C-alpha cells in the first residue's frame, strides 16, 4: 500500500505523458464562473486542495461542490467535517438555500462529523488512522459517493502528537482516495509563506485553489486563484468571487477567447434624429454604447429613450440606476413624454436601482450578472457606470467593466452605459478608460455662450458604420429629444439663442441679396433696351447715308453720260462751225 501511495503522489514522467494523450476528465462544480476558469471543473477522481485564511469561504466552496454534485450532476457525496458539527454546518449553509439534512435523508449526501478532543486522548505506542479510512469507506459505500469533502483535515494536526504518523497517514489517505476514484476537496488553512499551514500541498499535486479575502479601501473583496491544475489549461489570474444567497459566484476577468458572434441587425437608438446620424439605422444589436457627458447634459434621458424604444420593440430591458431612484427617473423622463411606467407594468422594463456604496465592485457586477441571468433581457442600461468608481480602484473598475462588457457581448445583449465626465477634464476620455471596449460612443457636451448653456451631441465613434460627423444641438422638449443642426462657423459652434439670432440674420441677408439681384437684372434690361434703340437709330442713319450716296452716284453717272453726249455733239459741230465749239466750252466751265 505504502509503495503504491508513493507512486500515486509522485507521478512519473510516464503518467504525465499519459495525461497529455487522454484529456483530463473533470467534475463540474456547478459554481457560477468556476467551471469557466477551471476549464470544466475539478479533476475527476483526484484531490483538490482549497486553501485560504479564516473566513475566506473554503468550506462554502467545498460544500457547494458537494451539494451541486448531488443535486445537479447526480454525484452523491460524503462530507467529512473536522471542525464544525453537521448541525452547525447545516445551519451555516441553510441561508444559501442548501438543505444538508434533507440531502442526507434522501441518501444524496453522507454527513460525518469527526471530533477529536486532544485532552481526552492518550497516545501509547504505534497506531494508524485506519479508523478514518474505515469511516470514509463506510460513508462512500452508504451513498455510492463520487465526491468527498474533507473540511478541514488539518484539524487533525492539533489532535495527534505524533506528526510522523499523521503525515504518513495523510499521504496514504490521498492515495487511497485516488484509488477509490472519488473527486475530493480538501480544505486547508493558509500558512505563512506556504499554501497550507501543514504543507498538505506536498501530498496533493493535481489541483490547488487559493482563496483570499482582503480589504482594499475599506471594501472587502474575495478572490480566487487556481494556483495549480496539472494537465489542463486554466485561468491563472485572481478572480473576484462572492458568496451570497445563491452560493458562490466567480467572475472570470475575461473569457479566454474573443470570438463572440456578432449581429448585423440594427436597432433604433430611440431617437430618429440620432438614428439618422448612424446611417439612418441606429446601433448594431449586441453592441456596447457609451453615452458620456458632463452633469445635466441629458445622459439619463437618452438612456431612458433607448430603453423605451427597446420595450416598444417588445424586447426585455434591464435598467440599472446608481444615481436616481426608480420613481425619480420615471417622473423626470415622463416630463419629456417618455412613459417608462407602462413598460414596467407590461413586464418588459425591469428597473433596478441601488446605491453604489452599498457593496464592493464585485458585488455590483455580480448582481448585474444575476439580474441578467434571471431576467434574460435583450437590452441593458447602466446609469451611470462612473458611480461605481467610488467603490473601487480604477484598475478594478476597468477590469470589472471589461468583464461585464465581454459577457454582455457574448450573450448578444445590447448595452448602453452612461458616464459622467467631470467638468474641466478631458471630455473625450472616460475616467475608467473603457473607450476601447466601446462600440459606439455618443458624446454630450454643454456649450456655454452668450449667458446660456446649450446641449450638443455628437458621435465620437461608431464601429462598423459611416456615422455622421456633425455636431447637433440636443433639445429636450415635451415630445422627447430633438436634434437640431447647429451653426459651425468662424471657429465656433452656435446653439440656442445665438443660433436663432444667426438664423434671423441669415434670413435678412438672404432677402437683401434677392432684392439686389432683382435690381441688377432690371438695370441690365433697361441698358439693353437703350442700346437696342441706339443700334436702330444708327442703322436708320446708315440707311439714309446709303440712299444719299446712291443718289450721288446716280447723278454722277447721268452727268458723265451727258458729258459724253456733249463731247460727241461738239465733235460733230466742229466739223461744221468752230464758233459753236467755243460756246459749248464756256457752257461746260460754267457748270
Amino acid at each position, binding site marked *: 500500500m505504502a509503495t503504491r501511495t508513493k507512486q500515486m503522489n509522485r507521478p512519473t514522467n510516464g503518467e504525465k505523458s499519459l495525461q497529455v494523450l487522454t484529456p483530463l476528465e473533470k467534475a463540474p462544480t456547478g459554481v457560477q464562473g468556476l467551471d469557466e476558469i477551471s476549464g470544466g471543473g475539478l479533476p475527476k477522481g483526484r484531490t483538490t486542495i482549497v486553501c485560504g485564511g479564516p473566513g475566506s469561504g473554503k468550506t462554502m466552496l467545498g460544500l457547494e461542490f458537494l451539494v451541486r454534485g448531488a443535486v445537479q450532476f447526480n454525484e452523491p457525496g460524503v462530507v467529512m467535517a473536522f471542525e464544525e458539527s453537521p448541525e452547525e454546518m447545516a445551519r451555516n449553509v441553510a441561508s444559501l438555500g442548501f438543505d444538508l439534512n434533507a440531502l442526507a435523508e434522501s441518501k444524496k449526501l453522507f454527513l*460525518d462529523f*469527526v*471530533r*477529536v478532543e486532544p485532552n*481526552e*486522548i*492518550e*497516545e*501509547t*505506542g*504505534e*497506531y*494508524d*488512522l*485506519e*479508523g*478514518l*479510512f*474505515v*469511516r470514509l*469507506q*463506510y460513508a462512500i459505500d452508504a451513498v455510492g459517493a463520487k465526491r468527498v469533502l474533507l473540511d478541514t483535515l488539518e484539524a*487533525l494536526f492539533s*489532535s*495527534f502528537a505524533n506528526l510522523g504518523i499523521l503525515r504518513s497517514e495523510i499521504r496514504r489517505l490521498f492515495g487511497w482516495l485516488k484509488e477509490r476514484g472519488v473527486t475530493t476537496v480538501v480544505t486547508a488553512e493558509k500558512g505563512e509563506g506556504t499554501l497550507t499551514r501543514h504543507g498538505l500541498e506536498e501530498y496533493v499535486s493535481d489541483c490547488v485553489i487559493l482563496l483570499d479575502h482582503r480589504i482594499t479601501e475599506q471594501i472587502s473583496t474575495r478572490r480566487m486563484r487556481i494556483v495549480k491544475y496539472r494537465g489542463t489549461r486554466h485561468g491563472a489570474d485572481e478572480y473576484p468571487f462572492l458568496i451570497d444567497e445563491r452560493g458562490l459566484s466567480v467572475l472570470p476577468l475575461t473569457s479566454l477567447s474573443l470570438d463572440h458572434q456578432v449581429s448585423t441587425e440594427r436597432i433604433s437608438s430611440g431617437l430618429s434624429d440620432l438614428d439618422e446620424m448612424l446611417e439612418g439605422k441606429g446601433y448594431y444589436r449586441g453592441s456596447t454604447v457609451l453615452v458620456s457627458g458632463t452633469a445635466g447634459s441629458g445622459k439619463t434621458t437618452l438612456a431612458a429613450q433607448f430603453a423605451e424604444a427597446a420595450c416598444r420593440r417588445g424586447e426585455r430591458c434591464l435598467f440599472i440606476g446608481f444615481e436616481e431612484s426608480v420613481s425619480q427617473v420615471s417622473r423626470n423622463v415622463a416630463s419629456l413624454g417618455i412613459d417608462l411606467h407602462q413598460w414596467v407594468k407590461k413586464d418588459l422594463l425591469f428597473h433596478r436601482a441601488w446605491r453604489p456604496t452599498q457593496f464592493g465592485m464585485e458585488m455590483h457586477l455580480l448582481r448585474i450578472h444575476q439580474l441578467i441571468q434571471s431576467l434574460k433581457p435583450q437590452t441593458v442600461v447602466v446609469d451611470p457606470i462612473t458611480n461605481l468608481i467610488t467603490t473601487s480602484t480604477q484598475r478594478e473598475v476597468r477590469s470589472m467593466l471589461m468583464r461585464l462588457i465581454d459577457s454582455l457581448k457574448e450573450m448578444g445583449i445590447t448595452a448602453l452605459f452612461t458616464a459622467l465626465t467631470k467638468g474641466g477634464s478631458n471630455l473625450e476620455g472616460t475616467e475608467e478608460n473603457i473607450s476601447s471596449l466601446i462600440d459606439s460612443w455618443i458624446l454630450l457636451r454643454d456649450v456655454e455662450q452668450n449667458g446660456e448653456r446649450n446641449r450638443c451631441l455628437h458621435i465620437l465613434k461608431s464601429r462598423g458604420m459611416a456615422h455622421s460627423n456633425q455636431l447637433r444641438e440636443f433639445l429636450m422638449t415635451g415630445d422627447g429629444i430633438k436634434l437640431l443642426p447647429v451653426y459651425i462657423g468662424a471657429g465656433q459652434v452656435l446653439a440656442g439663442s445665438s443660433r436663432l439670432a444667426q438664423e434671423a440674420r441669415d434670413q435678412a441677408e438672404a432677402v437683401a441679396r434677392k432684392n439686389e439681384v432683382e435690381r441688377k437684372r432690371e438695370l441690365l434690361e433697361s441698358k439693353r433696351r437703350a442700346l437696342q434703340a441706339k443700334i436702330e437709330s444708327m442703322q436708320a442713319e446708315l440707311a439714309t447715308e446709303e440712299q444719299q450716296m446712291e443718289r450721288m452716284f446716280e447723278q454722277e453717272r447721268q452727268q458723265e453720260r451727258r458729258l459724253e453726249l456733249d463731247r460727241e455733239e461738239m465733235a460733230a459741230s466742229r466739223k461744221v462751225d468752230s464758233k459753236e465749239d467755243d460756246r459749248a466750252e464756256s457752257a461746260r466751265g460754267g457748270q
Partner: protein
Amino acid sequence: MKKKANSKVASRKSERPEPEAIELRLYVAGQTPKSLAALSNLRRICSEYVEQRYHIEVIDLLKNPALAQGDQIIAIPTLVKSLPQPLRKIIGDLSNTDRVLVGLDLRSTPGSPEAKAARA
C-alpha cells in the same frame, strides 16, 4: 480476594465509595500486529493493575464500520473507557503501561498531573 483488598486501599486513599466496574472498548480494524499487540497489552495491564471489575469489548471496524462514528474513532487501535466517567481514549498499541494507567484514570495519585506535565 487480592483485587478486593486493593480496591479497599484505593478507596481509602481517594476517600471514595467502591468504584464501579470499568467498561473498556478496544477498536481494531482486522487482525493487524498493532491491534493484536494492543489487545494482549490491555489484557496484561488489566490483570496486573486493575483491581475493580472490568469488561473488555473488542470491536472490529472492518466488520462493523458504522460503530466508528459513535465513539469518534479515527486512530486504530483505540481503547475507549466509557465508564466510569469521564470518557477516556487511548490510542496506540498500549505498549507504555504507565500512560495507559494514567489514561484510564487508574493513577489518580498526586503523581498523575506531573506525569501529564512530563507528557506534555
